[in-house]
Structures are given as structure tokens and as C-alpha cells.
């Protein structure tokens, strides 16, 4: 299905974005398109799977095969797409509510399977589309419609959980850092195995605490440090104990790729999706002997 490559970022444009001006999600959309251009992938080779949320609206704005699913379920949908047709480049774009609240169970189990897809969590620490309630990544004390006196729950950290669940690629990006985001997305997509990028993507409307300025003060860029992302425990130590939020590739498994689809499909070049299902072409009759 490959074709001569001459695409520009414009060819990934679809509907006009309706995010609030300044929303962090613009950065993700831009960086993702650029990453695709850099990776020389055409819209036909990509399937973008989203859930429901402001972040998930990206499937209206990113031109490729897209599937805007229901709240919390893009991961199983995407995993199956990849298994069905491993030639596709399957990206999940989701939010911290979609991916880490209602979708938490799938998150851990998708990681466990290690299907070769990329999950980008546009983490704004709120439920944006439902107008700003605290999310699982909101800090204790965060004030919102459902936490008028401040949230009483401690946040979870997506990358920490991903690492503990055995993810083979874990990164964090900051949506305002276009260069870094592009590089991180590219690396994630290139990685053979489940890759997760927790993208810090400020909600300018409902999160007045974790603003661009706040992040600029509270992140540290791993690319500027002498950090080797090859040790899972070291990475866990970093995400759990670092004062500042580490941004960059936190961990990448450098052992040989071992993806779920490679395990369950004997011959990756022969994706079941291209099978002709005409029963005449298949030997089904001998199965009856089992019951004789």
C-alpha cells in the first residue's frame, strides 16, 4: 500500500478546530501532523482512534482514517484495529478523563498486551468537555465544579502506572514545546510496541492553575540532562520522586520487539483483513470429524 511520498502538513488538515483559542490541544494536533510528515506516513496509512472529550475531538481535525469512539474505549478499539491490520499506523488520542478515569482498566491491560500502537493522552488535569471538573490527574485541592472546596483525591501519574504495568515505551511531552513534542511523537510511533505519551496540554478555560506559565516553571526537560531512558526502576524513581515534572522519553525498552500482534499472527505480512472469506477457499469440513 506504500506510495510515493510528497505530503505536507496541510494534507493532514480536516475540519477547522473548535477548541478554545490557546487550548493545548492545538499543539498536539500540530505536532502530530508534523510527526507524520517527518515519518513519511500518508493519511491512508494512519488510523487515529479517539474517545470522547475536547481532546478526542482531534479526530475531526486530523485527516486520516479516524474513529471517534465512545468515552473511555479507544484503546480496545485501537488494539483490535492493529491486530486486524498490522500495516496500519494506529494512534490513540485521548484525554486524562477518557484515558485515565473511565479508561483506566483498558490502559493497564493494553500495556500488558503490548500491541504496537501509540497512545497520546492530552492531559489537562480536568474534564474539559463537561466544563472543568477535576480529573484523576488533578492535584489534591484543585477547585472545580465538583470540588468546590478543592479535590479530596490524590492524583495518579499515568507514566508511573504505565511503567509498573510493563510498558515498553513511556514518555511525557509538553504541548507548547512543539519541537520536543514532535520528536517524542515520532519516537513513540517508531517504537515497536505499545507506546504511551502523557502530553501536558493546558486547558486555558477551566484550569487556571496548571497554565502554560506554571508548566514552564514546573517541568524539567530530560533532553537537557544526562538521562538514559533504559532502566525501568530508574524511570519510576524519576516520575515518582522528581520535584519537577520530567518531560521527554522516560523509558524505552531496548530488548527486541515483542508485540502482541506478532505473537498471535503467525505471518505478519498476511493480515487476516486481506483474506478472501469465500468458504470455498477454506477447509472447514474436516472439523466435523471432531464431533463424529
Amino acid at each position, binding site marked *: 500500500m506504500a506510495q510515493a511520498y510528497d505530503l505536507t502538513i496541510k494534507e493532514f488538515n480536516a475540519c477547522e478546530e473548535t477548541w478554545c483559542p490557546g487550548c493545548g490541544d492545538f499543539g498536539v494536533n500540530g505536532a502530530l501532523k508534523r510527526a507524520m510528515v517527518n515519518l513519511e506516513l500518508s493519511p491512508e496509512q494512519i488510523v487515529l482512534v479517539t474517545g470522547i472529550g475536547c481532546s478526542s475531538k482531534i479526530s475531526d481535525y486530523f485527516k486520516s482514517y479516524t474513529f471517534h469512539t465512545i468515552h473511555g474505549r479507544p484503546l480496545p478499539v485501537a488494539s483490535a484495529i492493529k491486530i486486524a*491490520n498490522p500495516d496500519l499506523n494506529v494512534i490513540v488520542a485521548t484525554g486524562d478523563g477518557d484515558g485515565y478515569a473511565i479508561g483506566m482498566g483498558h490502559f493497564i491491560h493494553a500495556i500488558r498486551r503490548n500491541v504496537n500502537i501509540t497512545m497520546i493522552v492530552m492531559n489537562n488535569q480536568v474534564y474539559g468537555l463537561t466544563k472543568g471538573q477535576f480529573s484523576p490527574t488533578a492535584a489534591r485541592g484543585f477547585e472545580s465544579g465538583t470540588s468546590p472546596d478543592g479535590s479530596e483525591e490524590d492524583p495518579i501519574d499515568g507514566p508511573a502506572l504505565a511503567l509498573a504495568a510493563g510498558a515498553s515505551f513511556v514518555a511525557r511531552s509538553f504541548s507548547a514545546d512543539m519541537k520536543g513534542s514532535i520528536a517524542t511523537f515520532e519516537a513513540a510511533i517508531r517504537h515497536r510496541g505499545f507506546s504511551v505519551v502523557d502530553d501536558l496540554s493546558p486547558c486555558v478555560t477551566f484550569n487556571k492553575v496548571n497554565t502554560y506559565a506554571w508548566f514552564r516553571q514546573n517541568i524539567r526537560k530530560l533532553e537537557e540532562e544526562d538521562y538514559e531512558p533504559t532502566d525501568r526502576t530508574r524511570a519510576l524513581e524519576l516520575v515518582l520522586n522528581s520535584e519537577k515534572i520530567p518531560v521527554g522519553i522516560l523509558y524505552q525498552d531496548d530488548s527486541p520487539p515483542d508485540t502482541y500482534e506478532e505473537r*498471535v499472527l503467525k505471518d505478519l505480512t498476511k493480515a487476516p*483483513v486481506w*483474506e478472501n472469506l*469465500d468458504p470455498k477457499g477454506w477447509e472447514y469440513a474436516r472439523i*466435523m470429524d471432531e*464431533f463424529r
Partner: protein
Amino acid sequence: MITNDLAVMIGGRAGDGSLVTGEILAKVFRDMGLEVFTIRDFPSNIRGLPTSYTIRTKDRSIMARKDHPDILLAIDEEALRLHGDELPPDGVVIYDSSSGEGPPDFEREDVHVYQVPLKSITVDNLGGARAEIFKNVVSLGVLAHLLSVDVAIIKEAIEKEFSRKGEEIVQKNFQALDLGAQYADENLAKTDPYVLERRDKQDSLLILGDDAIAYGALAAGLRFYAGYPITPATEILEWLAAHMPEYNGVVVQAEDEISAVTMCLGASYAGLRSMTGTSGPGADLMVEAISMSGMAELPLVIIHGQRGGPSTGLPTKVEQADLKHVLFASHGDFPRIVLAPGTIEEGFYLTAKALNLAERFQLPVIVLTDQALCQNKQTIPPFDLSQIEVDRGKLLNDPIEALQSPNGGNFHRYALVEDGVSPRPIPSIPGGLHEASSIEHDEMGYTTEDPELRKAMMAKRMRKLETARPELPGPVLHGDPSADLVFLSFGYPTGAIWEAMERLKEDGIPTKYVQLRTLWPFPAEEVGDLLADAREILVVEHNYSGQLAALLPTLLGKVLPTTSVTRYDGLLMTPGEIVAAAKEVA
């Protein structure tokens, strides 16, 4: 003398080997050229609680529990206590007399009790710590002798069953069998009337309902199955896990039912034939995805094997109380199709059909079945594979040029076509870019809230049901077309109704049976015609509230004279209770 019409109940404990013994016996009867139907009545327990396995055999096809078991192999006292009363006059008990005492509290004079020291025979002769496990096989030897079954046939079945466990096990079983037969020969005088006669062996399959469903799906091109274990659908998952890889298909054991069903939608979107299977609790969790299938217009097939509810309920028992659920659960208006096999054989063909319907009309298809049809075995003729067709409808998997939308935008995946079914390109096809979406959308799949477009899309989706209608399996009319006493049912009671009808006919009461195979969209016209002249309609269903009977006025658009025949204790309906109900209104 009662020849070739028999129900043998093996009463034991979960995990004590009685299940395997029953399976062997079923094969033996089948190998004798007889027809077989098995009934597993088991608890939600792995080891220790009472269980029973009944094997019916006859020279005609059977599909129902007999009113009474004729012969009870009571592997322990509890079995006798539980089931002794069920035997008819002249029934048979084979009882373990190892304790030296006769059956306690068993006072019946009208049945034949054969006392056999099952345990002593095993312990004395077979040795080893687990010698007792062979009690079952010893009793089989006794039974063989009493029924004049050729021990060689049983040995063949035993060999088939145990050969993978090694020659030693096989030999031990042979020995146990011989010991039983020998004991019977030497000590028992036959007083009961039951005998079996060997017939010409037909080519038939002895198949579990779930296996038939799974096989039907595979043969119809299923290449993706995702499921989560649950009684009575687990066997579909297990059968496919064992068979799909050979056909380049994939089976995923998902982390829960929500994952399973949404995986199926993903696989569907990508272009694979996909399916999931579950029971009530899991089906509840799939409700949101059903609505997504309707909205995103993606094929989805769900096998829904009903079991006793509500909630965890009676998880290993039969029930048909999820009818209302499968017809109406999930929010919003969208098209769905609900099919219901009435036999194990239909399970095969209707599942294959369901995969076609789902793809042709791009909507959810639910195959409503039940524990009795899923977890019992029956002898049936070999499947006619030439009947299986694969019709993928408007699936596009070649590059598209002409259809590409003129504005350079996306493909019109949700084109507002007359029949409601828009062409569906699979990802990676050049020219087919589009957004599949759970949100109301325009023709390219992009989000819209435009009132006019919304109306057009809603109508387009719903039109598919009318397009599909002529292709849906119609109701089947059984029995005497001119009878005015009419049975109406679906699912497993079909077998019991057939048998009841025969008996009613013998008693001079003609009846007919309208068997529903498509439950939604309801074939109101056809069913209405078939019921038009009914004096009384006996609506037979296994649930407390008579769900089908209650819904009938809405489904048919008219009120007809109906009587509900129901059962809800988890045990299979018998022909006898249906006969009795019919006689009350005849």
C-alpha cells in the same frame, strides 16, 4: 419391554468424574446408531456440590429433557436422595452398596434397585489413592450389562476419551468397566424393562451447542473473536481459541466485556468479521457499545447465551429472561437485529447468517440463545457447508477513485443512500478516508448538530431495518397448520414443544407451533397471519414474567388470546408440562 427410549441420569458431584462418564455414555449410544440428547445440570461450583448429567437416547431425534429419568446411576447417597423420587414406576436405580446397607430413606417399591458395591470394587481391585474415581466406570459396566450394550463399543469410546492421558489410564478404565459388567453378570438378575438395540449407524455429529455456534461463525468467515469467560458462553471462546489460529484468525481474551465488544468494533472497522459472546451480566456491560455499533454503522455480532438471573442469579442454569433486554437495551433509537436459534443445529446456521446480516446492514446483530442450547449436546446430521455463504455487503477493499468526494474532502462514508446502507471502505484504502463516529455526523463522518442533517441521518439508519426485513429468517410453522391451538416460542423450548405436540396428537389434540427465529425487527405480518385463526396461543418461555407474552400486543399490534406457559426454577422444561398446559385450554 421398553426399547431404545431411555434417559439415564448420572447423579454425582462436581468434579467427581460423572461428567466424563456421561459424555462417554452419550458417545456409546450414538455409536450404537441411536439419537442422543444430553442435559447437564450443574451447580456454580468446581468440586463437591451435587450435579447430574442425563443422557437421553431414542431412535428419533430428541431435543428435550424427558419428564422423568428412567435410570439413575446414583454415584452417592445424595444423588438418590435428590433424584430418587423423580423415577417413574418401573424405573431403575443403580446404587453403591459398599457400606453394606441399602439406600437410606428410600422406600419406593415400584422401582428396580440394583445394589452394587461400587466403591469396594474399585478399592479392592484397582488400588491407588484415587481408585474411587473409577466408581463411575464400574457403574457403566453394570449398566452395559443390564441394557445388553456391547462392552467393546464402550471401550472404543473410553479409548478415544482417555488415550491422550496415557495407556495406563485407558487400561484402568477398561478394567473398571469389565469389573462392573462382570459383577452384574454374576450378581444381578435383570428385572427392569429397558433395553437398547443397535441400529445402522448414521453419519451424525454429537455436538455441544456452543461448539456449533463457534463453528458456524468460523465457517462464515469469522476472523476475530474477543470474549471474557462467562457461563454459558465460555465454550465458544475456548473452541475458537483452539481453532481460529489455523484459519489465520485471532481470539483475544479481553479484560472485561466492555473491552471485548469494543475490540470487535475495532476489528470490524478495520475490515475483519468479528464477534463476541456472553451472558446476561456481560451483556449488560456491552449495552453502550451496541448503541455505538448502531450509530457508527459498524457490524457487530453478539452471541447472548441466557442463564438464570437476575444479576448473578443462577449462573449455571437455564433461563430466557433477557428477551426484553436484547430487544430494548441501549439508549437512543437505532436499528438492530435479534435472531434466536431453536436448536443446536440452528445455532450453527443462524450464527453464520448473523455475520452476513451484520456486514450487509452495518448494524448490531444479537443471537439470543440460552444455557440449554449452549451447554447441552445433541446428535445432528453433519452440517451442510454449501449452505454457508459470505456476503460482505457494501464493504470496499479496493482503491476508490470515482467515489471520492468532489471537494477533495473525505469519502462519503455515511452517504444518504436510499436503502440506508452506505458503502464502507476499510482503512488503508486510498480514496476511502473518513471518520467513523459515535457522534451525529455528516456524510463524511464529521460531527454535526444541524437539525436537518440529523433528521436525514436518523431516517437513513432506521431505513436499514426495512431493507433487511426480506432477508431475515421468518417464523417456522410446525405441526398441523389447521390446528387452532397454537404454541408460540423461541429458543430451547422448541424441542420440548415438538415432543409435546406429538403426544398431544396421539391424544387427538392437533396443535401447531410458530417458532420465532427473528425477534427483531419483529415479523409482525407473517406471525400475525400464522396466528390469525388461533383459538388460544400458548406462549412458552422460560422466565417468571412471561416476557414474550407480555410484549406480544406491541410486537403484533393486536391483542390475541394467549396463555403463558412458563418455568423459572432453572431446570429444563419437559414435554409433559407443556402437554398438561395445553390440555388445560384444549
